[in-house]
């Protein structure tokens, strides 16, 4: 599991790559939270490189979104592959975290 992050204007952009399962979350969770929560910036998360999303990955996304929300920031996901999109839909995750189809749409939602 890999993670990169940078800024697009005032928005934090985080890119996740790999399997977001128990092992993947173990590798990336601390850095994921640290990259997003402390500065409270609105954040977009690129899921286009995520090949599998398990319950632990969903838990990480929800927990981080909650923590960011307490700082006044919003988190939006985008770029989910069909398999990951199915998991997100099954879990009704979009009731909690918005999912955009593209980076531009995600930026529009947090902007």
């Amino acid at each position: 599991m890999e993670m990169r992050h940078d800024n697009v204007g005032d928005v934090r952009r985080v890119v996740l790559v790999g399997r977001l399962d128990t092992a993947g979350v173990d590798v990336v969770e601390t850095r994921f939270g640290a990259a997003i929560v402390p500065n409270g910036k609105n954040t977009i998360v690129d899921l286009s490189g995520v090949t599998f999303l398990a319950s632990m990955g969903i838990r990480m996304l929800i927990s981080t979104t909650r923590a960011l929300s307490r700082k006044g920031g919003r988190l939006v996901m985008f770029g989910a592959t069909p398999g990951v999109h199915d998991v997100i839909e099954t879990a009704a995750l979009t009731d909690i975290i918005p999912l955009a189809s593209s980076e531009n749409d995600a930026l529009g939602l947090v902007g």
Partner: protein
Amino acid sequence: MEDGQTRVMTFARSANFTLEDRAHCLELIEGHDAGHRFIVGPAGVSIGRTAPADIVLADSEVSRSHCRLSLENDNILTVTDLNSTNGTFIDGVRISHPTAMPVGAVLRVGRQSLKHEWRTHREILQHDEFDRDIAKARSYVEALLPHPIGEGPFKTEWLYEPCSKLGGDAFGYGALSPTQIMLYMMDVSGHGAGAALHSVAVMNLLRQRALPNTDMSDPAQVLAALNHMFPMQDHAGMYFTLWYGIYDTASRQMRYASAGHHPAFLVPPDRSRAIGLRTRCAPVGADPGTRFSAATADIPPGASLYLFSDGVFEFVTRDGVEWGLNDFIPRLQRPRVEGLTESRRLFREVRRLAQPGGLDDDFTLLVLTFD
């Protein structure tokens, strides 16, 4: 011999160690005997289906004298196949000559997978003690699961195979009134002891029908009550998915609601369709603002209802392909197999398709067949 019910007989831990001496070990990583550990002493060990093999695996796919493990140059664990019928595999590759087996590699013999570990005797003793405690905890979880039902307005059978020694899956069913049957399937995020503790807390509430101020015959109310009682921020960040239904034996209707869970599937007797039963709601504990809804389905005579956790269909195949729910649904519609329960048939299919070395997630599948 059924998958996952292999009886294991083994030789005694014969080697003499000091506590800090390291030993090569093989640990079973699947099935009811997962965690059982064999020490490979200086003289090596043989594996087979019957004595005089040192490690006896009562598995019909294991040859009488299947393979031998020895310690070769500089204490390297080496595996030699003894012309077994079904072959010996290291990390999925069939061996044709004596082959070194690195620490962490998985040996596949018949339906058994054994992982190579390199442990001190102190670690082995500590691990054994921990395993005994976990085994007690697992026995407790399994004691909470309902007995299969063989007669009445519906029959039930199920299979529960945690991927680790304790899992976060749980299910149950039972009478709510003379004409109402309650049933559910839940899956706590993650695996292991924490997830198991969480599932046990919920199971006991549902078993006792003990949700406060809640009409247990109203699935949406039940989900809302649990969502209120188990917010993830108060439970170590854990949420759970749940499918909950009430079957009315008089009206032959199922009232159901689901939270973050994939559908249960209703398969008519002609097996022409697999009808998904689901309401779209967030998982329990994930969001205090979730509004839960319920729906109703008619149950045709002779139909079967399949409830399962996501570990049943989320796995990587031997070809490296990520499987998903849409790949699994057609398997539900396949014909029943004489002499096999449906849960066992589907488990065998998944095991056959999945990469060797055990499933990554808990496999829990409950089948109800209606009169």
